């Protein structure tokens, strides 16, 4: 551990040096908030401003003269919470403000960017869509995001096997960036299920889909378990987090409490491959006990 701390210190030192070398003293982590270039409104300088997100919030520390620097940093390493950001009067300092806005922009991008059709095709998904016809409608009409459009219903009925033990499905939900987990979590779930002697058929994909869309897929396929992998509403920590929702014989009449969820799946949370292996175990348990959600004791 000591060695790891030393490495962290070295990285931190190297980053500050790099930022300083780029003429970034004005916004360097150690002395933020010193206004630069005031009074030269028209002068345009060459070069780049440093990337505020290059340093993780866990390693960024602005408190001047802390009583216990190492203790504070150890606490920061245990959370993505923005502690130790310091202030200028009652306000954030410039660096913290920029970092906050950069992270917020990442979250916005995750919500507003569409998952490329090429990605859906490359994964061999059976592509469909909810009743929403645009991102704006998806965000303002959750009810429509839970239902499939007629064409999709027909396509799913045609192309998906009936009465399968397990159907894995995917929806963009509130983060298209979360699709980055798909190539690692899907094969892990399949591998785990294969170990239990369960094969999985084609994977339906619902564009502009909400969690409730799994109920209609359950109704159409009559599968014993539907496992929905969906992008989570992003926060300031990451835009890539994904959830797996699982239900036994789901249909639109089931209550929300019928769903079992595994959340926080991304590289910085539960690694997608390991999460997939865990999800496979839960699916097996749901199949064995024929219940899900709060009735399932994990």
């Amino acid at each position, binding site marked *: *551990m*000591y060695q790891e701390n030393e490495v962290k210190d070295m990285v931190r030192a190297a980053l500050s040096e790099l930022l300083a070398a780029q003429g970034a003293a004005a916004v360097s982590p150690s002395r933020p908030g010193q206004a630069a270039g005031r009074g030269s409104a028209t002068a345009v300088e060459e070069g780049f401003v440093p990337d505020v997100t290059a340093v993780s919030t866990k390693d960024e520390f602005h408190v001047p003269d802390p009583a*216990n620097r*190492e*203790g504070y940093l*150890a*606490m920061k390493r245990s959370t993505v919470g923005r502690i130790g950001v310091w202030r200028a009067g009652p306000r954030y300092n410039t660096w913290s403000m920029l970092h906050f806005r950069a992270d917020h922009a990442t979250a916005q991008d995750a919500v507003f960017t569409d998952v490329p059709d090429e990605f859906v095709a490359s994964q061999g998904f059976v592509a469909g869509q909810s009743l929403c016809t645009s991102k704006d409608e998806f965000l303002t009409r959750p009810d429509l995001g839970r239902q499939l459009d007629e064409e999709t219903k027909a396509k799913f009925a045609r192309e998906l096997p009936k009465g399968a033990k397990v159907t894995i499905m995917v929806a963009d939900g509130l983060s298209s960036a979360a699709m980055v987990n798909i*190539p*690692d*979590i899907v*094969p*892990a779930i399949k*591998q*785990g299920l*294969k*170990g239990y002697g369960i094969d999985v058929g084609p994977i339906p994909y619902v564009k502009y889909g909400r969690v409730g869309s799994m109920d209609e897929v359950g109704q159409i396929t009559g599968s014993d378990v539907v496992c929905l992998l969906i992008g989570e509403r992003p926060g300031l920590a990451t835009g890539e987090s994904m959830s797996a929702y699982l239900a036994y014989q789901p249909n639109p009449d089931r209550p929300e409490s019928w769903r079992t*969820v*595994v*959340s*926080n799946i991304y*590289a*910085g*949370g*539960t*690694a*997608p*491959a*390991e*999460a*997939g*292996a*865990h999800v*496979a*175990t839960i699916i097996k348990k749901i199949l064995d006990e024929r219940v899900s959600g709060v009735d399932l*004791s*994990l």
Partner: protein
Amino acid sequence: MKQDVILSVGIDIGTSTTQVVFSQLTIQDMSSGFSVPRFEIVDKQIVYRSGIHTTPLLSPTRIDMDAVRRLVDGEYASAGVDKHSIHTGAVVITGETARKENANEVVHRLSDLAGDFVVAAAGPELEAVIAGRGAGADKFSKEHSTTVANYDVGGGTSNLALFDRGRLVTATCLDIGGRLVRVEAGRVAYVAPKIAELCQSEGIALKVGDRADVAVLKRVCQAMTRLLEMSLGLAPKSAFYPRIRTEQDKDVVLPAIPARISFSGGVADHIYSDACDSDPFRWGDIGVLLGQAIRESAAINAIAKFAPVETIRATVVGAGTHIAEISGSTIEYDAALLPLKNLPILKLNPADEASPTAMRRAIGEKLEWYALDGEVQPVAIAFRGPRSPSFKQVQELASAIVGGAASLVGRGLPLVTVSENDIAKVLGQAIRGAMPGQRGFVCIDAVGVEAGDYVDIGEPAAGGRVLPVVVKTLLFR
């Protein structure tokens, strides 16, 4: 199951005393319930403390195994504990007792008698760590975000463990203890060889048969205390200092003087209290005088004290409550293979882990180190493992392990992997797919081990989610 309670036993056979404790360890899922489970040991309650018995010896060099056994059996009976209900725990043999001729035999026979899954452990550093944890030094350093040194001053050795914010930084051991000079009927009855050397280098005249003179023996204890000060970085190390280290070739230098210090072990009670000062030879040794000398050390008193939660029982409490760990909560295993005991660790280094090819080769080569008469023996393959690996990486890892361990698997031995990073479940499922036939395996994670360690993996707890794990050393130096 969200919570489970397991019973743990600790048995310490020390230089002067032998003790037993039973404790209940509560395991609970600390995750939100909306993410993968994360079981932790959340509570440790000592439910039974034995009396403090004098360690039975047959001769100065042999432990009285039968007497130890009767003593332990008696404590199980008075605690009302059936040995089959013991889930985990440790038998430790500490101080000078670890150097008796039959120490190895005693500790192993006792670990078999104490319960199905009780480990034997020894080694001066491990002792220091166990005592430090039993004294609560690690917890205090974590809760107060500081450094705490715990010195366990016993009959035969003094074990120093330094913790920084809950983590062990370093540990060392000196051959200093309260029972290294014994007094009978007002005369010196025994002087340990190293203490005789110390007296000689200090110009103190002391030999067996002398009248037990408090002033002379106090000077011996002050010389011992100065050595303790040196180990703490409070004084420059003398030419004699290396002689008093238990492991002579291993010098430990503390990175800084600790912010707090605590004392445990039998002598600690005489450091914290002067109640026995008027009766210096009440234990027939120099324990009281040594405590007094440490209490009066100006250099040690300059460090803020921390009151340990245990003193004379620190080691046995540490053995009973702080040796057992639990594995990560997403793991994969064949329950029929458990428990597994005394598996030597085959540790892969970072170069071995650099690529699947290197890993496969390293496992194959290192397995041969553990072969007896050309036959591979059971081992646990330990490595760090990638953090958040891709699915492809996991497949490569699994096939490297299965390929590298072909000689192990071919003999029908269980394939056991211990990784530090959280990958065991997907790795286990990949191994199941990659292994020929219905061979057994156990994949656990969140456990750190080093080459030279041994690992015991217990029967499942918390509804099968976690496995109790004990990492230990069986080295008798």
